């Protein structure tokens, strides 16, 4: 059952990703992206990462994609159907870069470091499942987040504050509201 679901989600994710790249209208690309993000959230559920799946749908497919949609509509780009693909030497370069990237990524699967990883995988997975039952899907993330990683967590809050201020300053029309 999980295998069938995984294949279904994977096909939708890859199809949506291709749709993002080849979509002629920005809005169409955006909707393909939402399909990809939703199916990746489904795969998170298959890997027992329920909290991240919820965050993926709420924050990514919800908030961030709506932000993109706002900008597309604000700038009135929805009917911008001109094909904007690069051709010529750019397509050649893209093939080289994509081929190299795919080759490097595939290299990672041919090594034998994965064997040791898979070996203790069962015990780690069992430990995570036990922790989820004990603390709940949110607690199992929150516990290390507020103890071992609390400095990173605070810095994350600072980063978001800086990003909000920067976004407001950048998007404000020049001369508006200043002396």
């Amino acid at each position, binding site marked *: 059952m999980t295998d069938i679901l995984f294949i279904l989600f994977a096909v939708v994710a890859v199809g949506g990703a*291709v749709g993002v790249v080849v979509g002629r209208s920005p809005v169409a690309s955006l909707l393909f992206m939402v399909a990809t993000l939703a199916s990746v959230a489904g795969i998170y559920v*298959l890997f027992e990462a329920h909290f991240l799946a919820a965050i993926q749908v709420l924050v*990514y497919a919800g908030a961030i994609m709506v932000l*993109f949609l706002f*900008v597309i509509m604000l*700038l009135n780009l929805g009917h911008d159907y001109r094909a904007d693909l*690069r051709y010529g030497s750019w397509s050649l370069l893209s093939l080289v870069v994509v081929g190299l990237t795919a080759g490097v990524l595939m290299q990672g699967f041919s090594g034998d470091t994965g064997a040791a990883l898979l070996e203790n995988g069962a015990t780690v997975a069992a430990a995570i499942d036990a922790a989820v039952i004990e603390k709940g899907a949110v607690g199992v993330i929150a516990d290390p987040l507020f103890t071992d990683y609390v400095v990173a967590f605070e810095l994350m809050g600072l980063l978001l504050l800086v990003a909000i201020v920067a976004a407001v300053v950048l*998007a404000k029309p020049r001369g508006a509201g200043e002396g």
Partner: protein
Amino acid sequence: MLTPALLLSAALFVIGTLGVIVRRNAIIIFLCIELQLNAVNLAFVALSRYTGIEGQLYVFFVMTVAAAEAAVGLAIIISIFRHYETVNVNKFNVLKW
């Protein structure tokens, strides 16, 4: 189920890279960067079943950085659009050597 997930992650990352290179619409380029970040997130989540819960924490951090990046990037796009009336990256080449 680890290898299929990593293969899917690699496929999504490569498609995102392709999109960043071949498209000229700045918003689509941003979408493709988000796609790349998501591919990496998928690899983190898949590997967290084998190495520990920290993988899922890093996904949380990556999502936060992605949200901040999207907010600032879209603000830059709005600011650029005000000057050039376009989001085609070929048109803003002042910083290009």
